[in-house]
């Protein structure tokens, strides 16, 4: 058996890792705010955050394609700043993936924060812990499972991305050709052997990730 070109696999893992890191950085404050706020616009923000769950990826991809175009404000600004376009680039894929996987970060975190409630934070504040201290030493450990779920779901969801990537990224080897696109391309060219290998790798990888999560979840200390 000849191993097909594995660069789409590495690209996919890189994309999923970068996306997950960015999502945790952006999604945590958003989820925190959603869990605490009593503003009337909360349902609006929640609905916008959840949109990628229901929207066909091609619709999201289509709007992003327009937004990323060098003729648009954002796309033009990006070209001015970096000298390259957002469309058909790895950076564009990262932005698209962050939007596409946003609900998979925000929702588990928001429910974890809501389940924790304000009580432990109030207790910490009367023990002289400031806001950041409270978050790091009380909220984060109590919501550990929420963070694990958010990270894994975002990572896994980005691995399986296809429609959005096809729309904004195209099929540039080493830049935007992720594994789902590569498999599609092999099938189109009737190279079933390579499609088998790549699909098998994805299957094994996805299973391994989920197995790791469920194992960790069982071991994760919960002393409630």
């Amino acid at each position: 058996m000849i191993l097909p070109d594995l660069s789409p696999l590495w690209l996919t893992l890189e994309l999923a890792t970068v996306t997950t890191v960015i999502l945790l950085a952006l999604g945590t404050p958003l989820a925190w705010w959603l869990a605490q706020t009593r503003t009337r616009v909360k349902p609006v923000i929640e609905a916008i955050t959840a949109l990628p769950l229901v929207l066909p990826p091609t619709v999201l991809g289509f709007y992003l394609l327009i937004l990323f175009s060098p003729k648009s404000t954002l796309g033009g600004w990006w070209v001015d700043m970096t000298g390259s376009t957002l469309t058909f680039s790895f950076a564009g894929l990262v932005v698209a993936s962050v939007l596409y996987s946003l609900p998979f970060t925000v929702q588990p975190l928001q429910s974890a924060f809501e389940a924790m409630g304000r009580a432990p934070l109030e207790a910490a504040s009367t023990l002289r812990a400031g806001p950041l201290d409270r978050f790091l030493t009380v909220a984060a450990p109590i919501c550990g499972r929420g963070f694990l779920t958010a990270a894994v779901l975002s990572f896994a969801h980005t691995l399986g991305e296809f429609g959005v990537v096809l729309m904004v990224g195209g099929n540039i080897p080493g830049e935007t050709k992720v594994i789902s696109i590569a498999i599609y391309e092999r099938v189109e060219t009737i190279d079933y052997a390579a499609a088998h290998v790549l699909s098998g790798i994805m299957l094994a990888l996805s299973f391994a990730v989920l197995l790791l999560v469920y194992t960790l979840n069982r071991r994760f200390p919960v002393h409630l």
Partner: protein
Amino acid sequence: MLSVDISHSFPGFDLRVSHSFGAGLTAIFGKSGSGKSTLLRILAGLEPHSTGTVQMNGTVWQGSGTFLPPHKRGVGYVFQDARLFPHLTVAGNLRYAEKRAPQPGPSMAQVVQDFDLSPLLARYPGRLSGGEKQRVAIARALLSAPRILLMDEPLAALDATRKAEILPYLERLRDRGDIPMLYVSHSLSEVARLAADIVVLDAGRILRAGQTADVLSDPAAVPDLGVREAGAVLRAKVAAHHADGLTELAVSAGALFLPRISAAVGTDLRIRIPAQDVMLSLTRPEGISALNILPATVTAVHRGDGPGVAVALLSGSDRLLARITRRSADALGLVPGTACHAVLKSVAVSHADVGA
């Protein structure tokens, strides 16, 4: 000294309180929904939408454009539900407070010893009983070296046995007297046992405030405290232990006999006599099973709207309170100055806050 002059409104509720809390243990007493817990939360800084001023020893915590957040106030707060951190062991919970306390803080070893926590240190809160949780919660609050200790019904969720387990710890804490304490409760027996001062709260307003002994023996306060809860608190000294299992207590007007109390002769005790457990008789009753009968003089008769009246009595130098029916009061012709005998059907005992 903690001075407050605050108001806080939310739909269906309006709290307005102006008061200065002194040293020692002050009870904040009231029915559920009277605003006790809200008042405590405002003092701790947990209600940022409250208005007015809160000052601790001259430092403004709240008011005129200032709002100090809870972590800068240095209040120790014991919540009704303990609120231990579930991801930390008992030792971890205690260290959490110790690490953030201003140095030099209270000694961890001392607090662990005071609250008998060494067998619990390695356990997680999920493995503690309700009483153990509250002991840890109180110890944790003390380790943060608070300027004032706020306790929000720390015993309310516990059964009588567990309560009896914790009360001695609270009494010792109060007797050391190194930190002012506010103690929210809806149990007058706890208040009578623990508090030197009391603030009675109802529907967001202070009804009465003063020394516990004065408020509890004031017949006019009976409706505010609740008919079933009212009762005088007085001091007694253990006079003798008798062979038949009774302990003799000396009060100013004579002797009381109670089932054996495990306290040495000479110990000062604080006893509480519920108003509804006091019967009155114009002549000294004969042929009655009650052991405890004290001579007394009526000082006031307070008639409310209901069928009951509250009668204030002076027995020796002690004040008593009796709750009887209006019909009986009329039949006996009770007016201030009437000499009578008080028949005590029950007496609750606790160690006095001084000299115990």
